[in-house]
């Protein structure tokens, strides 16, 4: 089976006054359809840059080195021109951001932001787009979705906002969702709800998920496979069970040791 997404030797550098700083130094991995893969690492490890590079949304001062490839559904996204990339974004690949408060447009009603995905990707009837948005808001468990369609982002709680973001990312049933720290900005109790919802939706729609996170607790609960990144390199790639029980790389052991635990040592 060909993987859904194959990242091959991806290298990303950021230009600054001192020259080019490497953020991602030759990363390769693959995701099968419907699989949930974690990309774990501390801040600055380059994990977010990988997500942005797949989407073609790196900032202007970032450069992707030639020689790498991001193969998705049979084409290399790094070599795909912007108009075709726009067609893929939102329709075949959805994205969930860390801060739902910042990622929603503050001056647009939340329902319209969900409906916009459908409209941008060819839905001509505004009424049909709205109906789909309401249905999706129901599915992500937004209470009273019909009425909340007209709410502004600041009127919703953090958890509800992230539900809206999930609705946006999953409306068109993309083959892949990139979730960049989707629960890090939320309260612990809400984190669990949102994660459970992400898993539910993932199971329903068969979407593959690339979960970018620094939280190994989240990884243990959700993912089948994990890639550990450090300093722009993938230092370990393993099934989650193996990773937790028999970490191969010293850095992974350090990360695991850094997890807070309830039980005390002898």
């Amino acid at each position: 089976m060909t993987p859904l997404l194959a990242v091959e030797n991806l290298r990303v550098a950021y230009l600054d006054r001192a020259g080019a700083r490497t953020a991602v130094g030759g990363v390769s991995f693959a995701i099968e359809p419907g699989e949930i893969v974690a990309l774990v690492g501390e801040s600055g490890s380059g994990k977010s840059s990988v997500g942005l590079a797949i989407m073609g949304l790196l900032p202007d001062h970032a450069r992707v080195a030639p020689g790498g490839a991001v193969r998705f559904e049979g084409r290399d996204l790094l070599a795909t021109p912007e108009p075709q990339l726009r067609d893929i974004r939102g329709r075949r690949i959805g994205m969930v951001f860390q801060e739902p408060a910042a990622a929603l447009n503050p001056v647009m009603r939340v329902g319209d932001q969900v409906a916009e995905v459908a409209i941008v990707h060819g839905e001509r009837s505004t009424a049909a787009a709205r109906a789909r948005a309401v249905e999706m808001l129901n599915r992500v468990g937004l209470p009273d979705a019909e009425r909340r369609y007209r709410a502004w982002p600041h009127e919703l709680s953090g958890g509800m906002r992230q539900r809206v973001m999930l609705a946006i990312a999953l409306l068109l049933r993309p083959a892949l969702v990139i979730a960049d720290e989707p629960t890090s900005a939320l309260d612990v109790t809400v984190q669990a709800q949102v994660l459970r919802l992400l898993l539910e939706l993932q199971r329903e729609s068969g979407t593959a998920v690339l979960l970018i996170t620094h939280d190994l607790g989240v990884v243990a609960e959700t993912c089948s496979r994990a890639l550990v990144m450090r300093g722009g390199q993938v230092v370990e790639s393993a099934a989650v069970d193996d990773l937790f029980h028999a970490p191969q790389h010293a850095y992974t052991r350090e990360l695991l040791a850094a997890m807070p635990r309830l039980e005390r040592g002898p």
Partner: protein
Amino acid sequence: MSLRLRGASGRWAPRIAAATLAAIVFVAVAAPLVAPYDPVASGDLVADRLQPPSARHPLGTDLSARDVASRLAYGTRISIETAALAAVVVLVVGVAWGGAAGLATPAVDAVMMRVVDAALAMPRLVIVLALVAFIGRISPLTLALVLGLTGWPSMSRIVRARVRELAASDHVAAARALGVPPPRLLVRHVLPGAAPAIVVHVVVTVAAVIPLEAALSYFGVGIAPPTPSWGSLLQDAAARPIDGWWLMVFPSLAIAATLLSVNVIGEYLQRRDGAGRTGRAA
């Protein structure tokens, strides 16, 4: 040009200003209904020449025996129309140019902003005078276009700065991540956030264009007689400042009231926008 009204007047000043401006705009729109006489037709050149305000001519008559109230009403119409049209040109060209530069690649943005720098480096009055000298006698429409086309660079600079700032924000990145194409991105996700700054600058533009039109017309290079405008009315008045005081006073009051109102409203909008932004961040 900035006027500060503080304390207790802070709440009422914007309302009074809005009412004043509404009245002035009403006179401009309804000039044919408000004006008792034809603004350019002379009355009896012997009996009606340079008469002080009276029941028949509430604001008096001028040297050509024309009714000043009628000329002021039509002059208000011309001046307000000129300012409004100039502001629309500034709005359209400035937002389009600034918006495009804000979303463009760094190289294109740099070129577009150097054009703005060059335009801003040239003194506006000199350009307007040169254009007017080149065109000759100009209509209110032409003057509005000239004022608008010399006024858009500052607007484009403000819009571009705001667009850059907003384009780097998370929600615009999120919109791009769901495949929103650039034109829609600008209109739906970027410009609404820039709207308060744009509105304030439109008000500033109006406040700058009104005295500019008046000054140009006063010096005889703006709107040409016999078409009345606030500036050309003042030009008529300059001949008889003492024994024809009503010629000077009423157009001056109209200009002063308009500018005062526009500035108070501009200040109010700016203050409200500032409060709104910090409020949203909290």
